[in-house]
C-alpha cells in the first residue's frame, strides 16, 4: 500500500517535519526547563569565572588594576612556594581520611535509623545537631575544650593512666582533630542516605529474606547496589567539599593554619593570599589549579561510575 504523503500533510501541519521544527520539538523542552539555570550560569557565573581565570594570569592586588604577567603565578606555585606544598599535603591528607570515614559513618547511622524503630525522629534530629551548628565560633571554642591538653579527651585518657598531648595545638595531631570534626558533622550525607534508602522498595528485602539472604548479604546485594547513585553523589560532593574545606580551619586556627601550617588547608591558604596579602591574581591561579584537581577527580569518578553505579533507567 503506497503512502500518500500529500494526503497526510494537511492534518499533520502542527507536526510539520521540517528539520528545524523537529529539532525544536526535540530540544526545546529541555532548554526551556534549563532556562533559569542557563540565565544564572551565563549571567552570574560564567563572567566571574572567566574573570578569575584571567586574573590568574595577572598580578592583581585588589586595589590597583591587574597587570598581565603570563604564567608567572603558575610557575611560582610549582617551583617556589613551600606553603603551596604544605597546603597540598594537608588537604590531600584531609580528603583521604575524612571523606571515606564520614561517608561510612553517615551510611552506618542512616542504616540504623532506617530500621523503623521507636523514637526515630528524635535520634535523627540528635544526629543532625552537630551539622546544624556548622563551623561557628562556638564550635571552635568547644573543640578546644575537648582536644586541649587538659581537655575532655585527655581527662578520659587519664582514667587509664595515659597522659595525652594537647591534640589541637600539636602539629602532629592538629589536622586529625579537624578530620574528627568533619566526620562528626556527618548530618548532610546521612540525610541524603536516608532519603536514598527510602527509595528502595521494601519488597526487595522481603524477597531476599525469603531467598535466605542474611542481613549482611542483603546489605551487600541489595542495599548497596541500589544505593549506589546516592553513594556516588555523596562521594563526589563530600570530596569536592573536602578539597574546598575552609571554615573549620579558619575558625579553629583563627585563620593562621597553625601550628606550623599543619592545618593550612588549600582554601585557607588561598583565602589568605587573596585577602590577607592582597594577591588576588595568585589566589586565582591557586583556585584554578584546585578546580583542575577536583575536575580530574570528578571526571574520573563519572567515567568509572558506569561500572558500579546502577540507575533505574
Amino acid at each position, binding site marked *: 500500500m503506497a503512502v500518500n504523503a500529500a494526503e497526510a500533510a494537511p492534518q499533520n501541519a502542527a507536526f510539520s517535519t521540517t528539520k528545524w521544527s523537529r529539532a525544536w520539538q526535540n530540544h526545546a523542552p529541555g532548554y526551556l526547563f534549563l532556562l533559569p539555570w542557563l540565565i544564572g550560569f551565563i549571567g552570574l557565573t560564567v563572567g566571574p569565572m572567566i574573570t578569575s581565570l584571567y586574573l590568574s594570569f595577572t598580578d592583581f592586588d585588589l586595589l590597583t588594576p591587574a597587570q598581565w604577567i603570563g604564567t608567572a603565578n603558575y610557575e611560582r606555585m610549582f617551583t617556589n612556594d613551600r606553603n603551596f606544598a604544605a597546603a597540598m599535603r594537608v588537604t590531600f591528607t584531609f580528603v583521604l581520611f575524612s571523606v571515606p570515614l564520614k561517608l561510612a559513618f553517615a551510611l552506618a547511622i542512616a542504616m540504623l535509623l532506617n530500621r523503623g524503630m521507636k523514637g*526515630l525522629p528524635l535520634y535523627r534530629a540528635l544526629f543532625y545537631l552537630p551539622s546544624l551548628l556548622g563551623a561557628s565560633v562556638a564550635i571552635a571554642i568547644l573543640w578546644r575544650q575537648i582536644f586541649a591538653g587538659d581537655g575532655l579527651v585527655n581527662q578520659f585518657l587519664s582514667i587509664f593512666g595515659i597522659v595525652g598531648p594537647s591534640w589541637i595545638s600539636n602539629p602532629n595531631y592538629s589536622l586529625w582533630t579537624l578530620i574528627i570534626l568533619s566526620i562528626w558533622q556527618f548530618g548532610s550525607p546521612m540525610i541524603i542516605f536516608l532519603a536514598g534508602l527510602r527509595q528502595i522498595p521494601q519488597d526487595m528485602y522481603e524477597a531476599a529474606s525469603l531467598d535466605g539472604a542474611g542481613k549482611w548479604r542483603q546489605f551487600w546485594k541489595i542495599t548497596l547496589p541500589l544505593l549506589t547513585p546516592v553513594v556516588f553523589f555523596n562521594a563526589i560532593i563530600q570530596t569536592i567539599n573536602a578539597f574546598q574545606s*575552609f571554615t573549620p580551619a579558619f575558625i579553629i586556627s583563627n585563620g593562621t593554619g597553625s601550628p606550623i601550617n599543619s592545618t593550612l588547608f588549600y582554601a585557607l591558604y588561598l583565602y589568605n593570599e587573596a585577602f590577607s596579602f592582597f594577591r588576588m591574581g595568585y589566589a586565582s591561579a591557586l583556585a*584554578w589549579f584546585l578546580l583542575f584537581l577536583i575536575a580530574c577527580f570528578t571526571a574520573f569518578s563519572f567515567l568509572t561510575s558506569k561500572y558500579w553505579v546502577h*540507575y533505574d533507567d
Partner: protein
Amino acid sequence: MTTDAHKLTVVTGAENDPSARMRKRIVSVLAHTALISASILMLYPLLWLLAASFKPDNQIFNTGIWPTADWDIDAYFRGWNAMRVSFGVFFMNSFVIAILSIVGNLIACSMAAYAFARLEFKFKNFWFAMMMMTLMLPGQVTIIPQYVLFRDLGWINTILPLVVPKFLAVDAFFIFLMVQFFRGIPRELDEAAMMDGAGPWRIYWKIMLPLSVPVLVTAAIFTFIWTWDDFFGPLIFLNRMQDYTVTLGLRTFVDSTGESDFGGLFAMSVLSIVPIFVFFLIFQRFLIEGIATTGMKR
C-alpha cells in the same frame, strides 16, 4: 508472586519461632544502645553551648560544663539588644532570605534537574559538565567579580545578590542532588503520563515533583540551614546593620583584637539554632513519609 504473600510468610515465620523473636529483641536493644551512646556524643556540644550561655563571661573557659555560680540569663537580654539593632531584626532578615532561597532553589534546581535527568537535548552533557564545574571553583576568587557585577546592577546593600541567584539555580549542588534522585524514579511513570497526553511540564509538575517529596524536603532543609549559616555573602553584600543576618550578627560578637562578648554570643547562638532545629523537626517526617515509589513493581 505477590508482595502480600511474602509479608505473610515473613511474619508467621518470626512469630512461630521464639528464638528468632529473642534475637530480634537483642538486636533492637543493641541498636538502641548504640544510638543512645552516639547521641550523647552528639548532644554534648549543645549542652555545653546551652550551659555556657548561662555562665558569666569569666567562667566560660575555666570551669566544667555546668555553671558553678548562679544561672544567669542576663546574656540573653544583653545579646538580644547588643547591636543597637535588635536581634529580632536579624532573625527577620535571615528568615526572609532563607524562605526566598528555598522557594528559588526548589523551583529552579528541580527544573534544571528534570531537564538533565529526563529530557533529551543537544549539548546536554556539555551543560552538565559546566554545571558540575561551578561546584568546583572556590568561591573566594569569584566574589570580587560578582561584587562588581552586583554593584553595576545596583544590588549592593539589598538582599537581591543573596536571593536572585537561587532563582537562577546557581547552587549546582541541589541540581546534582535532584538529578540523582529523579533518575531513581521509574521511567515508566513518565511514559505512562506521556501516553496519557501529558507534556514535559505536566509530567514534571504532576508526576516528578510529587514523587520527589523526600529529596525536595532534603533540599529545602539544606537550603534553610546553609543560607541561615552563610556569612560570606551577607558579609560582602550587606552594609547596614539593620540588614544584617543572624550569622553576621553573631560574628560581630567576637573580635580577636578586642573585647568579645562570649556570653552574648552563646546566648544568641542558642537562639539562632532554634529556628533551624524546629524547621528540621517539622520537615524531617517528610523524609520518611515521602511517598517513595512503593507500590511500583520493579
